[in-house]
């Protein structure tokens, strides 16, 4: 779901400007599970799980949303979507503008809303 969203025409040019995309399949990639465990540590949540690193491999932010720490997985709910946008905001640096992040946030809302279950 996240992959599909990040690949959308509106989102992909902004995403690719700010982030190098890496997909690790924990079943098929050699050492995928070990890398997942190494980066995730003891934090909660299953798959999908994501993390943003700087160019030196140091973690900036993960999909464990603050303050409670639950993994947003493939974000659908308003809270999950907000955390994904926050992840991008915290790691955007100078490559991606606030206006572009707003575009991504709006696109995420439009993408996720029809997928939400009524509360």
């Amino acid at each position, binding site marked *: *779901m*996240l*992959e*599909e969203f990040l*690949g959308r025409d509106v989102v992909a040019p902004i*995403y690719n*400007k*700010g*982030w*190098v*995309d*890496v*997909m*690790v*399949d*924990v*079943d*098929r*990639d*050699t*050492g*995928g599970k*070990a*890398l*997942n465990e190494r*980066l*995730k540590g003891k934090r909660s949540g299953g*798959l*999908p*799980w*994501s*993390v*943003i*690193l*700087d*160019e*030196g*491999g140091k973690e*900036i932010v993960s999909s464990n949303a603050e303050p409670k720490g639950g993994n947003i997985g493939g974000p659908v709910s308003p809270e999950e979507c907000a955390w994904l946008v926050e992840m991008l905001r915290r*790691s*955007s*640096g100078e*490559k991606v503008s606030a206006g572009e992040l707003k575009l991504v946030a709006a696109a995420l809302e439009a993408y996720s809303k029809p997928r939400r279950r009524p509360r």
Partner: protein
Amino acid sequence: MNKTLTLLPLTLLFATGVAFAQKKAAPAPDLTKTQARALMHNKRVLVVLSADGEDFAKDLKRNRALSRKLLYEFETIAFTGAAAAKKWQWQGAGSGVVVTDAVGKELGRFTEGELAGKAALTKLEPLFCKPVSADKKLATAMVEAKKSGRKILIRFDAPW
């Protein structure tokens, strides 16, 4: 209707395949996107070619020896009838599959008869992608990030 597949389970492929077969003027399947996903996920592309009036994708799904492997090892795309014959030079009368790598190089083609039962796995298994190292992926991304001044977003997932 977009007939190409994403990370959707095969069940969705087959569900949409039926509707696709019933529509006469459906848009062409997006092979480029399918190949891009195959490249991203280190998979092959399985082009399912159904003869008019058939749904070979559905038959493949029923093949228990194969269905899970299909999901794990292939990005799948379906062509039907004349489109299959023209695009893939499919000379055979019935249905079949063409296997390509992520850049479109053909690796094999099989008729429906050749993929019956357990023979399907025997035929397709030698064409699976070799596993890639997750650490190597990360190392490559770090080099790229340093070069371009970007950050790295790693998504961990599994095909199930």
